[in-house]
């Protein structure tokens, strides 16, 4: 980046913080992409300065339990008072302030959905532990995104609900500090937050933002509303009475550009297309038309005039141009590499914190009942159940005073799913030799297996290997939709880095096993390795590497199978299977149905 570009980017980042601080809950939140360090701290300090002294930010620990998040029974207070005492949760406590989420890329889906629901309603709605209460929860969310790889993503439902996204990677501490000084010097004198209503956007402005969003492939409707709000707040910030194209451009840079999913079409093409302003009004239904009439006669008549139509087009271009210039450099290169690459990390996956449990399998919740072999006593929940009763029980003579009285009906047990889940890892050979033969058939077989996994509620993961790499194109998921999508976008061609593929499968299998689930490795390959572990081509040493990797699988004792995709059963694939202690299945003889039967038998 050139120096002036850096300066502009810095200034935008600061402007984002300043605008956000004006009304955090209205803007929803800000995502700050940056590793932990002085630059981020400096930026956060600036944000706090903008907010003023009254606002105390609260941190959200990733392992927060529902009773602290929403509120619930206060154990010690309940024991003392002898009646159920409610303890407000974090979301209610942070009302009017900032909620900071460190390591937001590790946020679990469940937690993200809970926060999103509260943000939508601006209220916490508690139905827990015998309490049914509601309280206001208006807060701004600060998502600190420290992701390194694409595998980790801040949950999309939260990103969708926040307005600003800034990327601090690439800024130096010095330049940020200098920029803050400059920014503060240029502040309007009356920087004290005066809450006045921002000026209203007219139709042309909304049109410009919406069409820029379409050109950039910004799908979300929330982003549109957010962009509009930012343009209004920006006008207010610069003490302008109406919203100028400059404000719309700021909104495009701050809100739309970071969400771009495609490169806008070049201006020549855009202008040759029939531009929307001419045809968008008639395409609306009558109700819309009449509404427009009633809302704004002026702008409506303005739309009819050809001269202002041109102005509208100009405005559209200003806004789109601003957004285009502000698309982060890394994002653009990702966009260039095509949609299939990008899609990979955008969904949910299973990143984020897994609830650790002492037992294997998923916890199924707490129930009342006596602990037995299959169920474990949940001490805290048992205490919680007994707490409100203490006063009553203390009155009866059967129980001595000053002791906790716990009766059989208080016992709460934690239940776990008895059978641990299986995650099937498909390592699909997409190399040239395989692709020539039967990549399509292999895909078909995998899809059939996916159907089985769906029925069993198992998870699947897909690793593809070709050329010089083996990569996880689908982290373990239960979503059939995503699995199918990741497979259909799989390109073929290149060498066969079999050793790398086995290594990658093994690594994934280990991480699955650590979660208390059972991995099953299914390799679909012709076994003709020709790229070694080091990425160097060469049949001989690639075979040796592959066999060595296969032995590792056998040592670790993971269940595996090798599906031979070559036209005739090949010795190479057989050898790999033997070393892996895996079941060997040549595809030509075993039809897709046969393969699926074998996997079923093994899972």
């Amino acid at each position: 980046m050139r120096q002036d570009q850096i300066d502009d980017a810095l200034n935008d980042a600061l402007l984002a913080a300043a605008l956000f601080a004006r009304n955090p809950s209205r803007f929803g939140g800000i995502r700050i992409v940056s590793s932990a360090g002085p630059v981020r701290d400096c930026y956060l300090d600036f944000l706090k300065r903008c907010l003023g002294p009254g606002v105390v930010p609260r941190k959200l620990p990733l392992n927060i339990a529902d009773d602290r998040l929403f509120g619930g029974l206060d154990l010690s207070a309940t024991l003392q008072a002898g009646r159920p005492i409610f303890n407000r949760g974090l979301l209610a406590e942070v009302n009017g302030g900032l909620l900071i989420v460190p390591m937001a890329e590790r946020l679990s889906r469940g937690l993200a959905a809970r926060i999103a629901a509260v943000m939508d309603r601006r209220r916490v709605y508690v139905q827990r532990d015998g309490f049914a209460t509601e309280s206001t929860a208006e807060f701004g969310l600060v998502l600190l995104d420290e992701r390194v790889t694409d595998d980790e993503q801040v949950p999309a439902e939260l990103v969708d609900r926040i307005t600003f996204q800034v990327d601090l990677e690439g800024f130096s501490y010095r330049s940020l500090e200098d920029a803050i000084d400059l920014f503060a010097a240029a502040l309007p004198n009356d920087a004290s937050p005066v809450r006045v209503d921002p000026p209203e956007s007219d139709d042309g402005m909304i049109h410009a933002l919406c069409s820029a969003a379409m050109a950039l492939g910004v799908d979300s409707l929330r982003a549109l509303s957010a962009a509009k709000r930012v343009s209004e707040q920006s006008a207010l910030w610069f003490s302008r009475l109406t919203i100028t194209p400059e404000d719309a451009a700021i909104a495009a840079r701050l809100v739309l550009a970071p969400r771009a999913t495609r490169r806008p079409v070049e201006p020549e093409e855009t202008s040759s297309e029939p531009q929307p302003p001419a045809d968008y009004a008639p395409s609306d239904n009558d109700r819309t038309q009449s509404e427009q009439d009633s809302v704004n006669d002026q702008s409506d008549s303005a739309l009819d005039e050809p001269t202002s139509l041109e102005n509208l087009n100009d405005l559209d271009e200003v806004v789109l141009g601003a957004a285009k210039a502000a698309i982060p450099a890394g994002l653009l290169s990702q966009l260039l590499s095509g949609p299939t690459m990008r899609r990979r990390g955008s969904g949910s996956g299973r990143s984020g914190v897994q609830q650790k449990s002492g037992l294997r399998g998923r916890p199924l919740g707490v129930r009342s009942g006596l602990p037995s072999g299959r169920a474990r006593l949940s001490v805290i929940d048992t205490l919680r159940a007994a707490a409100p009763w203490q006063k009553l029980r203390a009155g009866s003579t059967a129980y001595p005073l000053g002791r906790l009285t716990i009766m059989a009906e208080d016992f709460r047990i934690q239940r776990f799913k008895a059978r641990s889940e299986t995650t099937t890892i498909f390592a699909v050979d997409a190399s040239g030799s395989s692709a020539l033969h039967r990549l399509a058939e292999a895909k078909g077989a995998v899809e059939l297996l996916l159907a089985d996994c769906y029925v069993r509620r198992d998870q699947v993961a897909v690793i593809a290997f070709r050329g010089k790499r083996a990569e996880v194109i689908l982290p373990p998921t239960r979503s059939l939709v995503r699995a199918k999508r990741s497979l259909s976008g799989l390109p073929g061609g290149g060498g066969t880095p079999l050793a790398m593929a086995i290594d990658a499968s093994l690594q994934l299998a280990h991480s699955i096993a650590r979660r208390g689930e059972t991995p099953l490795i299914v390799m679909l390959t012709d076994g003709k390795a020709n790229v070694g572990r080091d990425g160097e081509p060469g049949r001989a040493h690639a075979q040796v590497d592959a066999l060595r990797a296969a032995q590792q699988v056998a040592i670790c004792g993971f269940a595996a199978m090798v599906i031979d995709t070559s036209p005739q059963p090949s010795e190479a694939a057989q050898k790999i299977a033997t070393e892996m202690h895996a079941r060997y299945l040549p595809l030509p003889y075993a039809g897709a149905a046969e393969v699926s039967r074998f996997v079923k038998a093994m899972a």
Partner: protein
Amino acid sequence: MAVAFPFSAIVGQEEMKLAMLVSTVDPGVGGVLVFGDRGTGKSTAVRALAAILPKMTAVVGCPYACAPDDTRSRCEFCGQLKKSQARLKTHLIPVPVIDLPLGVTEDRVVGALDLERALSAGVKAFEPGLLARANRGFLYIDEVNLLEDHIVDLLIDVAASGENVVEREGLSVQHPARFVLVGSGNPEEGELRPQLLDRFGLSVDVKTPQDLGSRIEVVKRRDAFERDPQAFIERWKKEDNKIRRRITVARERLESIPVPDAVLERAAELCMKLGTDGLRGELTLMRAARAYAAIQGAKEVMSTHLKTVATMALRHRLRRNPLDDTGSGVRVERALSELFPV
């Protein structure tokens, strides 16, 4: 959120709106499952629906808001009242639309012992939960695929039987819990348990509108609503009232609308062609078609009605075929166009 966005002001999403109206007119159709993109107004539509529902008559003081003329299942409360009073006192109340938030605990779903009363008065009283409050109304679950399994188990049972049986903390209570289940979610978060899927009568897919005109309109209306909710609601009041009247009229006419044998045959043919499991699909399809005919003010159910609701009634009942890349909605439509050539 104190006031809801007006139902009639929701831009587009006709299928979702229709599905909600159909299940409002005939709750027997079963619930509505709304799957789709983020920010398409799924929750907005549910809350908006709550605001346009015609009020219902309920027994005064009944924790389950029983209808006075309900003979199918009588709750204990109304049973007691009936002994002492000849005529039950009634009042008009809004139809409950109850949120089932994530992180809800079992005791609040099914109901539990009222601790306050137990401690202060020593009375063993039942404190009804969300299922009780949702009786005769709607139970809304946002992010339904993230709901914990043990809560799902409870729902599956109650949604099928229409009755909530509580056996806990020394209580033994049974009360009516007939509600329309409305769920929304994002398919990328994972699939739903087939049993839960089956409890939803209708299923719709919502997509973010892709044409500039409606996108602009969404932003404008949202903005107008945020600036002055009261004025905005006032502006759409007439439209909302119109829908409310249509619901009322359709409900009254529902029972009197005949379903001709020819249409019944068509429905059966369609289900056979698609290979839907069991009879539930066919039944739902018929009820939905009849409700739609009632909304349309038709004299009898015609095949056009069947066609309109077929996709939403059958979409989620097809067997998964992973080799077929087309969505199940497309498969229903394909079968439809074969059955009803234009």
